[in-house]
């Protein structure tokens, strides 16, 4: 008891006891820029969500969100041989049975998707479904602005092996490990997601950074692990406790492991750093490296492989 009192006194007199308060910041009116969130995977149609940035402190409600979407844009995707215009669909026009697929493809939780209508551009023309090795260019004309981008679906690199291991000090929790044999070409980049069967409603990007490239291990065969990712702003108990980064013994983990091209990788790498650094005073304002000419956001192709692991040590 005495000891802790002494510590408290010491801390009181010396430790950096910082304090914080709410402040108001006046930002000037700014130009609202176009933002693209688009992806294409083998055997799937391309998806493009088109929106505009909002003032940093603008109030958020359903209306403002709906207003962020850009309607009636002309969106073309070309794979070199075909050039096809995407059509705009809003999720409230779709049957519920399709929603999980949509949630997956645009990377939001099913709950969010159900509570809130998304609008996106896509096509049901199988000629424009993704194919490994092909390059896809995007051309958007919206409200007098032109946006362009290019991405590829690289050949998937399969993972050698996945396994689960208890973390020292825990009996039922641990990371998911993998063994990867990186191909000899420098610049190969990856994105990894997991979905616990019966628990997660979609594939969630791995925690602490879902993308990596082979800058440090080009051509090597090596082992590493991933953290379990969370839904954005998850308030679930398991996502905020001591074991938040771990998988649990008994989890059935479906893994989506993708190969992506460098510009696509650079977007996610800088995006995840920016999201992580938000407010860190020692970090310079993180610039997100977009691959969209004329706007913000990403247009990315994924070379996908799927595996399943049952977490047993």
């Amino acid at each position: 008891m005495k000891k802790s009192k002494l510590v408290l006194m010491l801390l009181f007199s010396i430790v950096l006891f910082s304090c914080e308060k709410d402040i108001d910041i006046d930002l000037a009116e700014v130009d609202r820029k176009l933002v693209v969130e688009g992806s294409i995977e083998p055997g799937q149609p391309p998806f493009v969500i088109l929106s505009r940035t909002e003032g940093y402190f603008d109030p958020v409600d359903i209306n403002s969100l709906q207003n962020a979407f850009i309607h009636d844009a002309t969106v073309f995707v070309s794979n070199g041989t075909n050039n096809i215009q995407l059509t705009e669909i809003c999720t409230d026009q779709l049957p519920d049975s399709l929603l999980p697929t949509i949630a997956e493809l645009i990377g939001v939780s099913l709950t969010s998707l159900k509570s809130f209508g998304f609008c996106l551009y896509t096509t049901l023309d199988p000629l424009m479904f993704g194919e490994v090795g092909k390059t896809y260019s995007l051309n958007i004309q919206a409200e007098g602005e032109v946006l362009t981008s290019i991405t590829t679906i690289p050949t998937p690199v399969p993972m050698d092996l996945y396994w689960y291991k208890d973390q020292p000090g825990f009996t039922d929790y641990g990371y998911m490990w993998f063994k990867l044999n990186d191909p000899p070409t420098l610049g190969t980049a990856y994105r990894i997601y997991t979905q616990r069967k019966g628990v997660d409603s979609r594939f969630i990007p791995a925690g602490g950074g879902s993308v990596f490239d082979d800058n440090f291990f080009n051509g090597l065969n090596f082992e590493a692990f991933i953290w379990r990712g969370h839904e954005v702003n998850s308030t679930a108990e398991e996502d905020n406790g001591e074991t938040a980064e771990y998988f649990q013994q008994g989890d059935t983990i479906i893994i989506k492991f993708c190969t992506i091209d460098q510009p696509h990788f650079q977007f996610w790498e800088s995006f995840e750093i920016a999201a992580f650094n938000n407010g860190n005073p020692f970090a310079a304002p993180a610039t997100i490296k977009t691959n969209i000419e004329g706007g913000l956001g990403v247009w990315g192709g994924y070379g996908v492989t799927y595996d399943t692991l049952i977490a047993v040590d």
Partner: protein
Amino acid sequence: MNALKNILFFLFLSIFVFQVSAQNKYTVSGYVKDKSNGESSIGATVYIKELLKGTTSNAYGFYSITLEEGEYTLVISYIGFKNIEQKINLNKDIRLNYAIEPDVITTEEFTITGEREDKNTNEAVMSTVELDVEKVKALPALFGEVDILKTIQLLPGVQSAGEGNSGFYVRGGGPDQNLILLDGATIYNASHLAGFFSVFNSDAIKDVKLIKGGMPAEYGGRLSSVLDITMKDGNFKKYEAEGGLGVISSRVTVQGPIKKDTASFIASYRRFYLGDIVQPFISDSSKFKGTNYYFYDFNAKLNYIVSEKDRLYLSGYFGRDVFSFKNTKDGFGMDTPWGNTIVSLRWNHLFNDKLFLNTSVIYTEYQFEVGLEQDQFEFRLFSGITDWNAKLDFNYLPSILHNVKFGANYIFHKFVPSNATARSGEVDFNTGDIIKNYANEFALYLSDDWDINEKLKVHVGARYSMFQHIGPFKRYNNNEFGSPVDTIVYDNGETVKFYHGIEPRITARYSLRNNASVKASFTQNYQYIHMASFASVSLPTDVWVPSSDKVKPQFSTQYAAGYFKNFKDNKFETSVEVYYKTMKNQIEYKDGALPEDNAGNNVDNSFTFGEGWSYGTELFLKKRYGKFNGWIGYTLSWTNKQFEELNDGNVFPAKYDRRHDASVVFLYDISKRLTLGATWVYATGSALTLPEARYTIEGQIVSDYGDRNSFRMDAYHRMDLSLTLKGKEEKRFKSNWIFSIYNVYNRKNPYFIYFATEGDIYSGTLDIQAKQVSLFGILPSIAWNFKF
């Protein structure tokens, strides 16, 4: 450049003419030292009463005056010491060494003032401040830690790098543009604990001089300032121990004669122990067991008077910060040692009464290392810079009208910008080659302090500097994604790039009536080594890099002018200075550059280049002595930058652009034993870049940033108080208590701003709130110092 050549030509000519015409001239020369401990006195005034002309002792206490034959009165004066007056009959060269006695008369009866009373208005020196280390000790200090770097921030033209930070900016220059010297050796990283404390232990320091403009030719290699710090020599008379116990650190210094009046030593140690104090209270079962932070500094100096003409100094500094972090549950461990090492050997030699030479051989090193491990993973990152430095500094005093300095300086630099090794189990990751850069830096200089006539005195000089970046070196030419496409290999000793240039340094003083003068200076400087920073503050991870085929030397031109006037028997000193400074080839990291881009790559591949300029005015009012003394400083300034690849090529304010910067510093002797100290500072809020818009991808909100440094935080202001209580005067043992209060009126100064996001955008409950974090509220501390 022609004008410069002419000036140099006339300079030589004048010295020459003078020599030829000199008939029956004799020299009085010698050393000035402190009688009580034998320490040499730097900058003591030695003047001839009849002529009202004089000189000052140099960095080693040496003075020399050459005059026509005759009878004169020589006056030796130095702040805080009794004046010495002596009649001399100059009919041959004479050697007179003086031992000056500390002035024990209390300040109330301060009739004599030590330092030459009108030094401020009389010297052809501007934008230069010297600090009295003993006075600094009575000022309030954060956690009671006396810190000379924080004291110099209280001077006009010098800006603090932030709350509690010992980093400083001089007249719009970056932190890498300050040359910080300890006994002639460069200190590359002068801070502990990310800037909260400086590496200088005030007990070991004798003299501090800051030059923020009009840099004399003997200094070079940096654009903005020189902070020249001299360590104590060690007591020649008797053994002495002093030290202090503080809340977060303690220090001890011992000094004494090895051989009385011939050789002495001083050794000083300081240890920060906050982390150690809390160690016993971390329970064995805590997952953070083994986490600690501490730093220490060790200073030592030996000096030996070999003969009347030769003197040797050996000084060293060794300091380390050590941070270890353990999280046993996660199997995570981190170990981070960093710090400076310097060794400096100097030899003073007197060729004759007029020619003094100091030869220095210096080793200086800064190293940073971080080791991380988690389970089977290991990651190590190390960076650093090592210099081998040799200097010849001549001081030639041909007549009372000239003080000529010339010399040469050679530095061999070795840079290890940022190298990483990583492994997972048995597999070593390929983090690229271990990159080291090598360079030769060479300079020659010549300058003269020249009394042209009663009114006009000039310091005119020039420095010729050269820089050679040499192999072995590999230039990685990368594509836009940072992957190498080809490399150019330079062999051992092969020149990668050579730069050179002339740096003119001119300062003139013109005396007016009534103890006033106007001064003007023009200086140009090259800087061949650079430090860029990712973060908004300097961190120990910042790396130094040489000029290369990609990075051109930084180059500055500074014009300054000022009006200096003293009042009331020089009791009050005032000055107004204006300056305009341009800086070319400035460096920043490209937008979106990441620290990991540096592994296996040339750091300078991530740089982008532009220019900066700064202008402003500085007001200074100082009451030099009396029961109540201190100063008020105010700076009005603008600092801007322009980079083609940043901020869309538009001009933006530097992050340390401060429109207003003011400080009030005073000491008041309440009684013989009690002194009150107070400081108040005010600074315009820091410039920073804030998000102006947001967007959402995969449900994650991210920011789109506005113009660079277009937002201002709230102004910074703070008052500190201190009370020094001297113990009862005893013969052997002296002690004092220092009570200080930081941030007396508990101002919530902004340290950083962040944005808290709550709720979920898709349910329409999102709430973004800006929050301002303040670091130190009102903070009392206490320290006890002793000396015997």
